[in-house]
């Protein structure tokens, strides 16, 4: 995973630069998401990993599948990846691209796990507190996870704020040892 990130970074940086020049970050982001989804398909994976499939046929196949979801620039990007044997990097490139985009636009992706569904007011209040705490605008993705028992668990990048009952119980277990 870490090695993939190292390999993917130059590609992601290049397309992000290009996207900024042509002001097409949103469309890039959409098509990258589509390409990643395609590559995660097990049938496609088999083809991509098969060394017998030659590059021309592979790029023709990819372009065929992605038709309607990619523009000309996306197409040449795909061809380049096929040529360099780096098609596997697409999901990582997409992730890094999103990170560049988020950084540029000054917001942060935050995952919030809650034991119970949050009401709209609660979400707003929570988002405001988090923004103050992290010092950045946030995009909050809320999910429900019953195994937390109670409270919430926030993930912002590497940072984790664990306010769940489950976390506290684990913490207490360690303290009592």
């Amino acid at each position: 995973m870490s090695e993939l990130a190292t390999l993917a970074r130059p590609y992601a940086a290049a397309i992000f630069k290009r996207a900024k020049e042509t002001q097409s970050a949103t469309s890039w982001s959409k098509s990258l998401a589509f390409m990643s989804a395609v590559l995660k398909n097990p049938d496609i994976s088999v083809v991509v990993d098969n060394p017998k499939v030659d590059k021309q046929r592979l790029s023709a196949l990819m372009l065929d599948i992605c038709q309607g979801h990619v523009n000309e620039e996306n197409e040449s990007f795909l061809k380049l990846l096929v040529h360099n044997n780096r098609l596997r990097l697409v999901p990582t490139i997409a992730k890094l691209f999103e990170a560049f985009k988020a950084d540029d636009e000054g917001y942060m992706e935050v995952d919030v796990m809650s034991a119970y569904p949050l009401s709209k007011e609660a979400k707003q209040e929570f988002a405001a507190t988090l923004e103050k705490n992290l010092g950045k605008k946030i995009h909050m993705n809320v999910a429900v996870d019953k195994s937390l028992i109670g409270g919430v668990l926030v993930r912002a990048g590497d940072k984790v704020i664990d306010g769940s009952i489950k976390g506290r119980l684990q913490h207490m277990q360690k303290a009592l040892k």
Partner: protein
Amino acid sequence: MQLNPSEISDLIKKKIENFDLSAEAHTEGTVVSVTDGIVRVHGLSQAMQGEMLEFPGNTFGMALNLERDSVGVVVLGSYQHITEGDIVKCTGKILEVPVGEALLGRVVDALGNPIDGKGAIETTETAPIEKIAPGVIARQSVDQPVQLGLKSIDAMIPVGRGQRELIIGDRQTGKTAIAIDAIINQKGTGIKCIYVAIGQKRSSIANVVRKLEEHGAMAHTIIVAASASESAALQFIAPYTGCSMGEFFRDRGEDALIIYDDLTKQAWAYRQVSLLLRRPPGREAYPGDVFYLHSRLLERASRINAAEVERLTGGKVKGKTGSLTALPIIETQGGDVSAFVPTNVISITDGQIFLESNLFNSGIRPAVNAGLSVSRVGGAAQTKIIKKLGGGTRLDLAQYRELAAFAQFASDLDESTRKQIERGQRVTELMKQNQYSPMSVAQMAVSLFAANEGFLDSIAVNKVLDFEAALHLYMKSEQSELMNNINATGDFSNEISNGLKTAIETFVKTHSW
């Protein structure tokens, strides 16, 4: 001990009362790969160099390689249960070990956990294993001796408190024996000892512990053991662990002695860790920072002045200096001191005790090579009487070495050369000493005095040690006042000189050896 249920619930209640309930914030990463005790972790962008990281299953690791997208971590202990995708948490702390008086008499592993089956260690204090050595202002020069109790070393290669004196030699030359004798001789001197065993057989470690217990030396000793079967990471950090435990005493105005047995194996362990972390190999495949590995460790052995002790203890201890003396051990291969690690450590330390296998095999034990062994700072710290009497010994041996080749033509030599050879043979014989029988300053002084004044010249070479033993017995029973006086002051005066002379003359007349 009987435990009743209410006690337990009280205990738990107390613990829960002190329990911090605030939401816990930390950074997390995920395990990408596990290879031979090295774990690569994705994420953890906030990790510090040397930070302690928490793996599932109460396992800890130390961050050693901080890269752009990942962190290279060595696992401290077993890593079999760690799998790809496991969550790794930052603890925000540099690796710490327990320190304190409670560790004396105990055997602990490289993380400070007891392994001697004597229960938990009652100490609340901890110290980071990596610390920067005291600065120039905090230091004081070495001027008090550490008596190792070995004639040949205390007379010719004296060690002072705060000195770093290397013990170097091939396998089976008695390196560990010197170290153990040194520990035994610190009984009752107030010097606390730490013995760090790195990469040794468990049976050897058990032997050392047993010998120390037999001689009543465990009470002032901590043993840090990272045996050959423990992971390379633990063998690599064990000396730093021991050093932090020793610094605890140094920083409280006490004296401590630490033995690293041996640093060659630590360098091997570090080489393994470094190569697995894919750091570029250099000479003999050691990484580029193998010099710093030992220099930063040995630099922490030092003598600090009273002002620094006062500052470190917050004014509780006044007017006392603290010291940590280090006796690192290096094992050479085939007597080759010009290999990479031996030359490094020779250049770092304040002198070396050089042991040779042919001396050892010819029965000269301790097998100290007096010509190649030096102590660069110990002279200033040597007890006055030993300094005065030991000077002659060194000279006698040096002259003897030059002439030894002619010894077989004894009959054709002139009078003075023959005398020098005979003196040399007797002094060489006198420098022999049995294991586990360290000598007091007075005993050494008597032996050296007898050699200097020529009392040994009329005694057959193979009778020298018998003569010495009988002399010591006589001095103990008949001249205990004089001996106590020498032990107490360590001074050499005309009065003492005359006292020794008449005592030995009286003894010689008895012919009782």
